[in-house]
């Protein structure tokens, strides 16, 4: 690991100033960053440690009914917060389906949003990777790419965003609060990420020094709590990234879908909101033919980036199953294996 300057700011303003310098990076738990630094994938000149900053670790219910989550809230603490888990069950389930208990105890909300892809070529410094070294090429394109993107990819980069947490968050219109050199601003989480295009090294719209200080979910997102699920297919039972995942959330009134939210993970360089599919669901009865039509709409633009045609079919099946499970009702308790696509649809205790 390359050596670095270690800076521990006392305030957010000091942090922003220290991190605006070229080569600086923020350090929160470091569960992704230290791994990248040990592998020589990233080599910051300066780490700005924000873990000692006060006021960034609260989960606060807002007067308008929304919730504000500080950037330093640990993944496990958010998932196990009783009010949060009850109000946003698909988000809690997604959090608990990711990583291991040790990592969830350390990893922060802000860090989860900004974690890097797990593309094997990005992690292998002997391979060409436009994201790691702009202009060097993409060895994933002709390589082992069955797990790579099927939506929004470019010739320059076919990597996927690995987060589970972000998938239900974009479905529920999460907003990030950012402190930067020009003050505070906020943007929709969905708009935080950039698709690779010809500059895959630029993964977000953040500018040097920008610090995510909080994440908000609007009051309206609570209206989906009775019919919300996150489902994730992975190559081993636990402690694995998604091959494909889906967050489905419905408002059902008198047997009709009033409003639907749908997003996919593991398919693109960003958590992928399926707006078209949501539109096809609204006003329909929650039944298999409707779900299949929505799934088809969600993947209409998909194309394989390599040996991954199967993900297009798999994503559609996961969407149908996630919508079916969401219709059946949010389980009263998160299943023993969160987000498992193999748990029985009936037999769990549900509330409607």
């Amino acid at each position, binding site marked *: *690991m390359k*050596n*670095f*300057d*270690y800076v521990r700011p006392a305030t957010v303003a000091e942090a922003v100033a220290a991190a605006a310098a070229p080569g600086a990076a923020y*350090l929160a*738990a*470091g*569960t992704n960053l*230290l*791994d990248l630094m*040990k*592998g020589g994938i990233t080599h910051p000149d300066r*780490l700005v*440690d924000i*873990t*000692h900053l006060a006021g960034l670790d609260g989960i606060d219910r807002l007067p308008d009914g929304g919730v504000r989550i500080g950037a330093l809230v640990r993944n*496990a603490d958010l998932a*196990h917060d009783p009010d949060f888990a009850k109000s946003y069950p698909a988000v809690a389930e997604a959090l608990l389906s990711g*990583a*291991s*208990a*040790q*990592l969830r*105890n*350390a990893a922060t909300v802000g860090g989860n949003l900004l974690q890097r892809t797990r593309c094997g070529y990005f992690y292998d410094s002997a391979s060409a990777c436009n994201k790691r070294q702009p202009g060097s090429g993409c060895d994933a394109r002709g390589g082992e790419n069955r797990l790579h993107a099927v939506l929004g990819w470019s010739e320059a980069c076919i990597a996927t965003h690995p987060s589970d947490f972000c998938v239900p968050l974009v479905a529920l219109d999460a907003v990030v609060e950012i402190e930067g050199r020009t003050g505070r601003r906020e943007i929709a989480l969905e708009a935080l990420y950039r698709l690779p295009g010809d500059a895959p090294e630029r993964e977000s719209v953040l500018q040097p020094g920008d610090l995510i200080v909080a994440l908000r979910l609007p009051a309206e997102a609570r209206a989906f709590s009775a019919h919300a699920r996150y489902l994730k297919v992975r190559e081993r*039972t*636990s*402690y694995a990234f998604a091959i494909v995942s889906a967050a489905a959330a419905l408002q059902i009134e008198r047997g009709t879908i009033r409003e639907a939210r749908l997003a996919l993970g593991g398919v693109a360089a960003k958590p992928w909101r399926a707006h078209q599919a949501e539109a096809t669901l609204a006003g329909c009865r929650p039944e298999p033919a409707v779900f299949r039509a929505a799934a088809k709409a969600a993947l209409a633009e998909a194309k394989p980036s390599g040996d991954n045609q199967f993900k297009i079919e798999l994503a559609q099946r996961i969407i149908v199953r996630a919508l079916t499970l969401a219709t059946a009702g949010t389980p009263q308790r998160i299943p*023993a*294996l*969160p987000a498992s696509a193999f748990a029985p649809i009936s037999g769990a205790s549900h509330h409607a």
Partner: protein
Amino acid sequence: MSFSISLTVNGVRRNIELEDPRVTLLDLLRERLDLTGTKKGCDRGQCGACTVLIDGRRINSCLALAVSHDGADVLTIEGVARGDVLHPVQAAFIAHDGLQCGFCTPGQIMSAIGLIGEGQAGDDPERVREGMSGNLCRCGAYAGITEAVLDARQDLVAANERRSA
């Protein structure tokens, strides 16, 4: 540039000068404090052999920079027994043969203590297996590990009830 940090390790306050900010908590424990019970397996947060408790929570010490944990309370495998009396989780691992080579065992035991403290898994073997999935055992002693965790939890719950009765 050097950094002064203070850690409480197994109940003892330690003031430590770090000459290099790159030192992980794992390397600090093993190389500086001679607490070699905490193991370095993958050193990349994938195997769980380096699991310790920080302020009562289990984490991977290989992915924690020591300098960032200034002020933390760290519990390692060396700090869980009371003299010659084993911690109930240690005793249960022996009783249920929850190990073969033993390399992953300190991490397994620290993770199990953390899991029981979290109180989410209860007496459900499925939840225990899921809650312990961050600790790999290449010998495949998982069946014994799961039994040990369930058994130790029962002992600890009973002991707590006796104390509060």
